[in-house]
């Protein structure tokens, strides 16, 4: 029986090539989109699961509350003393490990000097939690001894070439020597961290490097990523996380705090499942940029939408064509077919088409994946799609898709009365017209939602690009600050300024485009005394030249100045946002006011115009610029920013490098462009936008294909009517209008529905930006007009063809 069904399905497919092409092509493209997106989704969901103990590993995170109990910061890392205390207080924690990423670290072996961006101090328990595959050395013991380190294969090759790296000695940070005790394979792409160098954590115990005491008492340095291992199915939230407040009150002591002070009121600890980090953790100071579960949902829905559009095409075209098959159905019924047999026949047809489509789709996915990877900068592969667990769903998909798209036509066609169809009483494609209209509206609504979303995403990204940041990021390059410059900075800067290529150079603790996370307590003059400020004011350590280098405007007072000897010990710059939280009437009112920050008293000497230090996702925060005293320079600065004239970049860079080499011969010369770094802030949105555009175009294309088929059919049903109308004097445009009108009403309805849905969805998306565009009516109108135009062209081409043909032909053939 099935063979008979497939046979007739195949012959039908071959006979109606145009319709078959639309159906097959639509389903193939739809399924290809699904497979591509599935590859992406699977990759996102797979993060960190390669670890054999992934389900038992948790990370500890820490938040800080301000005086009002509002969370001001939530870091993904914690202070070093917590780990041993946790291990001690919670016996169910089987193992705990700490990871401290170091900043850019110069490393040297003989003449090979490189700045390592991913050198981590990692303790000897790391391999008890995470899977580390070594090529040489034992992952469990290689990091036990202080001053030992492990390298990835690639890094080892970089330093040692063909030599055997084991037991060689590398100079780290121009400060200490480490012996290579192991070589490990690079962490997989779907890990939330990718250390290149792992230096033994015990190295930190050396007082010249960090110090045992610091490790045990420093609650202020929350840079230690801390992971622990629990038994299987352990209720970690009840047994551990719930005990954290008591744990903090017991162990954390702030010097000088009153005896009834509860530290748990100001700081909290949380646990986070390892496998949730990539998609669900958006904390401050993540190790790497994470993904986002919402994005997984968004693209998942887009895939299903596109598939739905393709299925609707199938439903629409099949029912529209049902008249052509009515006789066959009648004959089969007369020959003894029962309704369920006919339903089964039509379903096997749609399943067969879906099967062919998925085979084609797998091929197409294979061909297009590299292109997608290029577009998104990803490294997706098809392999996860064909792994055991997914193979069965993959085989079942065509059945699902086939049934989804075939069930309505099957139920519809199998209900035909043989008496009517065999007597020719059956009216072509009747009955189901209203349902088909609903389907067309659904298709076009989806397309319009995608068009509007794409337009708004682009507008927002453009807005971000165009928005005045409050400083000039052009021609600025930044470099890692080196403490070797602490004493020679002025000479180094003068050397730079001697060149016509360099306009200015300044130092700061952080640079625009990064986060602004550091804060201390502030007090401001109020009457005769200083009143503590409740609001958070973030601080930035900056030198005299930071403000002019970035061209930040000074709206009141003045910048730090070498001419004022008091500046070097007691001067502050605020931004306008900070003057607002201090309840000052105007920026000018702030000038000369006494101000204390982190218990250092001084005066406000200037107010800066608000500028977007952080990305536009964040609101402009109140901030204070602090000029570190000469004696405190050490450790205050993190980056150097250099403003170039921008006329001859290569020459400027050569000059910079030669100057750098003169002052810092053992530190590699590495730099980044500020505007490029800024671009990266929105890289994920940029990628999202290109993907959106692609998928929106595909959706509209498939929807139009369906419309093409449907209108071709509708028009073919009316050829005689058109002939008569023409004989009676109708002109071409009148006939095109007549034929297009029905469909245009549907598109108009879809525009209304689609606009409403898109407005809600995009409002939510824009809510993720602190600074966003307001949606304009034009976008919605434009999308509607675009959809209508595309539909009109689709229908119009055929309508014109029919309308201009000789009416005698169509009438004679009847």
């Amino acid at each position, binding site marked *: *029986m099935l063979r*008979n069904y497939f*046979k*007739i399905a195949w*012959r*039908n497919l071959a*006979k109606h090539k145009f319709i078959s092409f639309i159906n097959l092509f639509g389903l193939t493209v739809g399924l290809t989109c699904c497979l591509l997106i599935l590859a992406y989704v699977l990759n996102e969901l797979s993060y960190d699961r390669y670890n054999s103990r992934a389900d038992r590993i948790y990370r500890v995170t820490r938040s800080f509350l301000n005086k009002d109990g509002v969370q001001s910061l939530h870091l993904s890392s914690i202070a070093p003393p917590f780990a041993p205390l946790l291990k001690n207080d919670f016996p169910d924690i089987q193992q705990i490990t700490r990871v401290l990423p170091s900043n850019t670290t110069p490393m040297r072996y003989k003449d090979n000097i490189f700045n390592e961006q991913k050198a981590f101090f990692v303790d000897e328990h790391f391999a008890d939690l995470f899977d580390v595959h070594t090529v040489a050395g034992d992952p469990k013991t290689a990091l036990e001894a202080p001053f030992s380190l492990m390298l990835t294969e690639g890094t080892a090759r970089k330093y040692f070439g063909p030599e055997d790296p084991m037991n060689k000695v590398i100079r780290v940070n121009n400060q200490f020597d480490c012996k290579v005790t192991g070589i490990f394979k690079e962490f997989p792409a779907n890990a939330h961290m990718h250390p290149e160098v792992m230096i033994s954590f015990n190295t930190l115990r050396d007082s010249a490097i960090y110090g045992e005491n610091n490790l045990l008492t420093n609650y202020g340095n929350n840079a230690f990523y801390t992971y622990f291992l629990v038994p299987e199915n352990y209720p970690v939230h009840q047994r551990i996380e719930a005990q954290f407040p008591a744990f903090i009150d017991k162990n954390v002591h702030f010097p000088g705090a009153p005896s009834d002070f509860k530290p748990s009121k100001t700081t909290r600890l949380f646990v986070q499942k390892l496998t949730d980090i990539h998609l669900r953790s958006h904390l401050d100071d993540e190790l790497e940029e994470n993904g986002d579960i919402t994005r997984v949902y968004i693209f998942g829905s887009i895939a299903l939408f596109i598939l739905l559009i393709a299925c609707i095409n199938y439903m629409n075209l099949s029912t529209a064509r049902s008249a052509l098959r009515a*006789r*066959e159905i*009648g*004959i*089969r*019924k*007369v*020959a*003894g*077919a*029962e*309704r369920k*047999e006919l339903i089964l026949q039509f379903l096997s047809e749609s399943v067969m088409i879906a099967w062919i489509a998925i085979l084609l789709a797998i091929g197409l996915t294979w061909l297009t994946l590299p292109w997608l990877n290029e577009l998104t900068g990803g490294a997706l592969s098809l392999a996860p799609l064909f792994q055991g667990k997914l193979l069965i769903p993959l085989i079942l998909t065509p059945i699902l898709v086939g049934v989804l798209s075939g069930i309505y036509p099957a139920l519809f066609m199998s209900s035909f*009365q*043989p*008496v009517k169809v*065999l*007597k020719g009483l059956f009216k072509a494609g009747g009955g189901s017209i209203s349902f088909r209209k609903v389907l067309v509206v659904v298709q076009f609504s989806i397309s319009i939602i995608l068009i509007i979303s794409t337009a708004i995403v682009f507008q927002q990204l453009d807005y971000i690009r165009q928005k005045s940041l409050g400083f000039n990021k052009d021609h600025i390059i930044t470099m890692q600050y080196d403490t070797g410059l602490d004493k020679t900075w002025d000479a180094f800067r003068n050397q730079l300024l001697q060149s016509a290529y360099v306009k200015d150079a300044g130092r700061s603790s952080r640079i625009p485009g990064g986060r602004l996370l550091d804060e201390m307590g502030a007090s401001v003059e109020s009457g005769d005394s200083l009143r503590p400020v409740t609001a958070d004011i973030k601080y930035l350590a900056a030198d005299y030249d930071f403000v002019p280098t970035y061209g930040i405007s000074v709206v009141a007072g003045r910048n730090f100045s070498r001419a004022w000897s008091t500046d070097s010990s007691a001067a502050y710059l605020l931004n306008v946002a900070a003057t607002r939280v201090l309840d000052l009437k105007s920026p000018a009112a702030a000038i000369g006011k006494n101000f204390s920050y982190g218990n250092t008293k001084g005066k406000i000497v200037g107010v800066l115009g608000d500028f977007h230090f952080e990305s536009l996702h964040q609101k402009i925060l109140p901030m204070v610029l602090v000029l570190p005293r000469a004696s405190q320079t050490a450790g205050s600065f993190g980056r150097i920013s250099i403003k170039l004239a921008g006329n001859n970049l290569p020459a400027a860079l050569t000059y910079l490098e030669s100057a750098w080499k003169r002052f810092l011969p053992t530190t590699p010369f590495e730099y980044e462009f500020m505007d490029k770094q800024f671009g990266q802030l929105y890289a994920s949105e940029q990628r999202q936008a290109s993907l959106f555009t692609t998928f929106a175009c595909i959706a509209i294309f498939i929807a139009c294909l369906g419309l093409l088929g449907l209108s071709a059919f509708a028009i073919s049903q009316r050829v005689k009517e058109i002939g008569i109308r023409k004989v009676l004097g109708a002109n071409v445009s009148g006939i095109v209008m007549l034929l297009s009108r029905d469909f245009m009403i549907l598109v108009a309805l879809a525009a209304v529905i689609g606009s409403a849905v898109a407005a809600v969805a995009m409002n939510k998306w824009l809510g993720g930006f602190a600074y966003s565009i307001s949606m304009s009516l034009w976008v919605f109108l434009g999308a509607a007009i675009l959809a209508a135009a595309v539909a009109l062209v689709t229908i119009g081409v055929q309508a014109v063809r029919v309308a201009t043909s000789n009416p005698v032909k169509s009438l004679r053939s009847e």
Partner: protein
Amino acid sequence: MIKISDLQKVYRTEEVETIALNKLTFDVKEGEFVAVMGPSGCGKSTLLNILGLLDDPDGGSFLFNGTEVAHFNERKRADLRKRNIGFVFQSFNLIDELTVFENVELPLIYLGVKGPERKQRVETVLDKMQIMHRRNHYPQQLSGGQQQRVAVARAVVNNPKLILADEPTGNLDSSNGNEVMQLLTDLNEQGTTIIMVTHSEHDSRYSHRIIRMLDGQTVTENILV
């Protein structure tokens, strides 16, 4: 074999009510060959559809082999139909996408007959209808007479007790028409009951009995034999 009494069928549209069958009563014995004649619109085709269980009556009784079938639901009707009744239409009604062999095979598939037996039975009947050499052709490739012979082959392949023929020669020239009538006569002689709707006096002479209808009622019954 068939006994109908007071059979009624009314077609209603919003404004018009057409009585297609008006308290029709007659019966057909097993082995009979009955021709139903009458002008267009007299209810012949409606009657044939009801007899073929393709349509249900609005009133009256329809006994098929002693079973009341007038109010059978669609599934029961389909089941009774595929086991007992074969159809021959004026317009042949072959499926264009299937070959001659496959068209004839169709009723056996729906009866659940297994492959090898199906093949043997289809070949037997194609042989009998002398279209074996055309078994792999599609209907469009055959002449009208050949197509109707395929249709007859399809009607008889499941050995039905009753064959309903709706103007079987209407689309055929006279020599092809006679061939088809001869086929039906042979089947009748082998015991199959035949009820045939026709306009042709010539064809009606192949039957044992002619029922003439007008306005949904029988007006005369002529016994030929």
